[in-house]
């Protein structure tokens, strides 16, 4: 088993954290702006305006 000493953990926390942050932000922005998702999002945004009729089944 690898000896998880303090310095290793700190170094990992510092370097990996930054990489993770960037990868995640890019992924989320790309997903949100992907053209084929547009229609779905618009329908979702409108869906709450008229939803009091009752459950679908």
């Amino acid at each position, binding site marked *: 088993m690898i000896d998880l000493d303090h310095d290793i953990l700190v170094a990992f926390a510092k370097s990996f954290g930054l990489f993770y942050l960037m990868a*995640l932000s890019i992924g989320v922005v790309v*997903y949100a702006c992907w053209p084929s998702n547009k229609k779905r999002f618009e329908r979702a945004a409108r869906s709450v305006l008229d939803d009091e009729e009752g459950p679908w089944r």
Partner: protein
Amino acid sequence: MFGFHYKLERHTIPFVLAIIFVAGIGGIVEIAPLFTIGETVEEAPDMRVYTPLELAGRNIYIREGCYACHSQMIRTLRDEVERYGPYSLAVESQYDHPMLWGSKRTGPDLARVGGKYSDAWHVAHLDDPRSVVPQSVMPAYTWLDDTQLVTEDLGQHLAAMRRVGVPYTDKMIANAAADVYGQANPDSDRASGVAERYGEETNVRAFDGEPGPVTEMDALVAYLQILGRLTDAAHEQQALEGDLR
């Protein structure tokens, strides 16, 4: 390409896992190194544990919510060091389950209040704060003086503390109730055992001014008088830094 996210949405469980993953990483990365922090916390060979009386006092401090208005953490800022004393070291709260660093100073910091005032001052102050500090807004804790301290289960308290990592010995646990009485009754035959188990530096006094039955006032004052005095590490650190300058 987004079949993946589509699945995330269709099936709630993967979506839930995504939230845990995204949110969890931050917590793990930030907290994990603290569990190996033992390597970075300063050494303090002279650090001693709370006596059962002081621990009982600490529990009263918690019960009454003192931490809501008093911090126990002197920051590394000049004005704080000059006002309250050497800045707090991590090692000083290593036996604090939970820590009482606090987040608000409606009243002053108490990290080094131990020994700053006399027992009598504390008793008068807790009984009626405005009798000693006229402008104080602290509540009066009149019931501490006439409430008997519950001592018979303090051994169990020490045992629970040991389970979370505080080095209480079997003898300390077995003698908890006797040590409580001894620490507040210097003339009794049980007093000598306290110094034997917790060190010669331990305060053995009638904290509330009256020997005999141990009150909650005894316990709370005993606790306040030990704050910042479990180890000299912070003072040594300050002296060391002074030398370097």
